[in-house]
């Protein structure tokens, strides 16, 4: 007979796929047929969703604060873009190269990031991203600077599906990559490894006593986060066939944080929902009132932090609990 501490049933329950999740993944498929004119926007949402997911892994699950996550996105975008503009435009090869280079950078910088406390981490992540931005901005003969990489030519996917102007191939490509990586991330966070990360976030002093190598775990998840971000960057480069220095710019990191808190950090779906809501809202509002969109953005951030720290997922969860309470 197992005692309670050994009872893993609640953990196994969260690891099982629920019906609502299947419904959630039907949405992008339905959107393809309902909004055929907006496929480019939908692809952007899928890409940014993946990027947001990568931040969620390191911030929401492991509690590593980062203001410079854009560094990995940018490295991935440049890796894929450079390959494609030098005649090696196979998309999957580009993804692999982007993932490898972003992960290598993530692994190397993880040791810098792990040295300090929150504030130092903020500054080091920011500093690394800014250094890369400056490098990309100055090495114009290599990166094209603000004008972007010249002549990015992405080959058809599997040699058969060319990337068309309407973004049909691009959309399915991004969506499939997002889904596959999401499933992997889902397994990861529900694995003992993922649970140890949550333990580290909740009580970093206690985890070594349980035998968890804290720094090794953190540097591993930071690398995974970087890898995901790199793939997101590569997707952007390949589907838009354009890479300029703004893939490394600071506002992208800040917006990403906003999307994550909006959806609710520490839940994988929060990252995706936050991104979808944010990007759709920006699409709708910026055409109405472009100049003051920023103001409402800032206000939204302030209000979320003050009153709705759980974001949309937190709101949904308390709604569910309230309903369950009423039924009983």
């Amino acid at each position, binding site marked *: 007979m197992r005692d309670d501490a050994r009872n893993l049933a609640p953990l196994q329950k969260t690891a099982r796929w629920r019906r609502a999740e299947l419904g959630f993944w039907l949405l992008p498929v339905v959107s393809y047929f309902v909004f055929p004119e907006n496929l480019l926007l939908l692809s952007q949402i899928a890409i940014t969703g993946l990027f947001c997911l990568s931040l969620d892994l390191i*911030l929401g699950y492991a509690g590593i*604060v980062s*203001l410079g996550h854009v560094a990995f996105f940018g490295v991935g975008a440049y890796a894929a873009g450079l390959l494609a503009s030098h005649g090696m435009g196979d998309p999957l090869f580009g993804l692999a190269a982007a993932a490898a280079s972003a992960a290598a950078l993530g692994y190397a910088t993880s040791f*810098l990031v792990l*040295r*300090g*406390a*929150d*504030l*130092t981490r*903020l*500054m*080091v992540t*920011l*500093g*690394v991203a*800014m*250094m890369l931005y*400056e*490098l990309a*901005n*100055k090495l114009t003969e290599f990166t094209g600077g603000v004008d972007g990489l010249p002549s990015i030519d992405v080959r058809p996917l599997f040699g058969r599906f060319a990337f068309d102007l309407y973004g049909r191939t691009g959309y399915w490509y991004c969506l499939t990559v997002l889904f596959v990586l999401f499933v992997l991330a889902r397994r990861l966070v529900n694995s003992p490894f993922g649970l140890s990360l949550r333990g580290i976030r909740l009580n970093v002093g206690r985890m070594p006593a349980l035998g968890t190598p804290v720094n090794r775990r953190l540097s591993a998840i930071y690398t995974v986060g970087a890898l995901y971000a790199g793939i997101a960057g590569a997707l952007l480069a390949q589907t838009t066939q354009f890479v300029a220095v703004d893939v490394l710019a*600071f*506002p992208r990191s*800040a917006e990403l*944080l*906003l999307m994550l*808190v909006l959806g609710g950090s520490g839940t994988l779906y929060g990252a995706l929902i936050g991104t979808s809501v944010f990007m759709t809202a920006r699409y709708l509002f910026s055409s109405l009132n472009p*100049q*003051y969109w*920023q*103001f409402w*953005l*800032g*206000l*939204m*951030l*302030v209000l*979320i*932090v*003050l009153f709705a*720290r759980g974001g949309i997922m937190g709101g949904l969860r308390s709604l569910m609990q309230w309903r369950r309470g009423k039924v009983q």
Partner: protein
Amino acid sequence: MTVVFDGIASGMLLFLISVGLSVTLGLMNFVNLAHGAFAMLGGYVCVTLLKHTDVPFLATLPLVMIVLALVGVVLEKTLYRRLYAATHLDQVLFSIGLMVMSIAAAHFAFGDNQQPLVLPAFLQGQINLPGVDVGIYRLFLVVLGLTIALSLELLVRRTPFGAKLRAAVDNPRAARGLGIDVNRVFTLTFALGSALAGLGGALGVEILGLDPGFPLKYIVYFLIVVAVGGSGSVKGSLLASLILGVADVAGKYYAPEFGAFVIYAVMVSMLIFRPQGLLGRTVAH
């Protein structure tokens, strides 16, 4: 030599703006990314006073500080206070929100042009010494910066208020138990930090310029100063500002092709070797 002097002067300006942040972030442990917004507001108050009234430049500075202190008190009592106990991440998000709002508000109120500022005649011009060209305004900044650094250091180390502040930061519960009104101490400190930010912003118009993008453009520099200088250390901030000022000016002068790369490289390497900052205090939390 001129490079060194200009570097010191620009470091001093950096210090003047970021010492306010060193007060709120360093002493009160609040990551206030909206600090640049306070500095920008100071700049706009100064420019508006000069444009619409006859107040001379030097007299606008105390006015700027008073206005900003009041703004600081209001914001502290309504918003910031709720987040003292929050995580650093929440504080970052909250203050990024405030910063973005301030940028949009400045766009709306002042347009996106650079604001002109004419210095009074006695602050213009240069003194030419052998080997060094000393801008009078820059000299003024250096003197003012040193004065403020000294008075702040005295305020924090030698006065009863400073003692209360240090007690309130290190252990708010025990400080309350000793009859210190911690909330009031924090409000006053925040007001002081905002006033200093405003002063720095007003002084910086001449060198850094003033447009709605100001908070975002320079926040990195202010944060670097505080992070590198070490939490809550006036001396550390001063030292860090000077190092960064000289490195920045020298970098732009000798290796312009690297641009701001130098300053980030300096920051990252400093933080790697001294994660606590140059003269950081280690506070037990």
